[in-house]
């Protein structure tokens, strides 16, 4: 009986888990509406701004994140090896820098809430009123 109850509870929560999506967040003062291509170009260092005025600071999706695979597939469209090769041609020539890596003490949402140009990719479950959701990735 206990097993059936546990199973039923799990089934009840499944829709909630299944609907958690990968989203893009920005500082609350940022009224951006980026396209997927624009997000890709920001994360590949091909552009620093979407309006020609504000310099944007994309935050990396860390290697240990559950979103890393989806980030590589949908955002940068490269394997990790291809991405490292791509950046090695830019970093050592001063042409661009990879997305910012936060320290273990810094949380993504807090960083974005405190830095006007910051832009990050998070799980929708981590969204809170301190930041704006500006893009939702498809499953």
């Amino acid at each position, binding site marked *: 009986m206990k097993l059936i109850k546990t199973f039923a509870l799990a089934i009840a929560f499944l829709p909630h888990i299944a609907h958690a999506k990968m989203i893009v967040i920005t500082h609350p003062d940022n009224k951006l509406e980026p396209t997927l291509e624009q997000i890709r170009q920001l994360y590949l260092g091909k552009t620093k701004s979407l309006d020609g005025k504000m*310099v944007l600071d994309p935050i990396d999706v860390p290697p240990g994140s559950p979103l890393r695979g989806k980030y590589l597939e949908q955002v940068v469209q490269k394997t990790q090896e291809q991405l490292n090769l791509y950046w090695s041609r830019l970093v050592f020539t*001063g042409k661009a820098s990879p997305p910012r890596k936060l320290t273990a003490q810094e949380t993504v949402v807090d960083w974005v809430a405190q830095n006007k140009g910051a832009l990050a990719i998070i799980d929708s479950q981590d969204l809170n009123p301190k930041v704006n959701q500006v893009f939702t990735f498809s499953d």
Partner: protein
Amino acid sequence: MLRSHYWQGLLLLGQGLLTSELASAVEFSLTGYGSLVAGKVLSGDADGGTELLKCPCYISDWGIGAAYTGTEISLKQESRLGAQLQIKINEDWSAYIQAVARAYDEVIKLDWAYLSYQISPSLSLQVGRKRIPIFYYSEFQDVGYAYYWVRPPNELYGWDLTNYNGASLRYRTSLGDYTVSATLYAGSSQLNSSPYWKINHEEPIDSRWRDLYGADWELSDGTWTSRLVYLQSMNQYNFDGQGWGDYDFNVGETTKQKVFGWANNWEWPQFLILSEVNATKIQSKDIDLLSPSFTLGFGYRTGLWTILPNYAQYADFYRKPEGEEGARYDDRSLTVRYEITEKSDIKAQYTYSDDLSDTLYLGDTQHFSLSYDFIF
């Protein structure tokens, strides 16, 4: 070589920025790269070479005069380690320093040292010492991990001067699915006792490129990248301290140099097409020389493996002196690359260098090299 007042100016500027109120926001980033390369001449013509370069031989890096000679395995010619310190002073200002240590000359050199100012999100100004962006791989030629061969084809990537002191202006923007960038740069370059000339001359020869101006324009959609380049300079050479002169060492004379290049690369998940065609024109009192070169490679990628057969050729065509015979050679290479980790690879490359010159220069050579490349 950097003039002392130039260094002083940069240091003062950097010091001023670092002691400003924004100093507390300074961010430091240390990155680097390295290659451990073992190579060996398998066989070749013993008739080629010079009094200073005994063949069979294979020149792996003209810029540092590195050549494999004899048939022993050597790690000295191409092994290197580079480290870059990026100092992000604030949102607009950054400073970069990149030092490279090479096994060949056992010296740590400051190859890059410049300040970068972001004028606008699309426009940046860089002042200081940088690598001359002559051809597609020129700026990151030392970063072995960044390309698929053990070394970019020597037919194109062999220069006596590789770094310049000056300024560059870079514009970058997006047009739909395409990114466009354009760079203008100006400056000068000088190297005393150039290793490039030591391949053929026992006497020390200093090289300098003055009135160096260049531009490049790049268009990319992520898979295809096309890059056009142009460079011009007034070159002089000082043969054994006799005074600055032209390519033939006529003191007081100057050599005019113009370089054109066009690279087109396609990097699909499974296939690669790497191509580049270039031409260098040298004109001085007694010389009118056109040196075209090209490289073409077709690669196949499967999993962590890349296989890349490549063909490259270089030729000299003299209009003056009339009837002068020029060098001509080609390389056929096969490279296999395997990505050991996300930041390192190993490569094995077989190269057959065919000396097609009317008068034998270095002769034919078969060469094999293994490299371990990494970034950190």
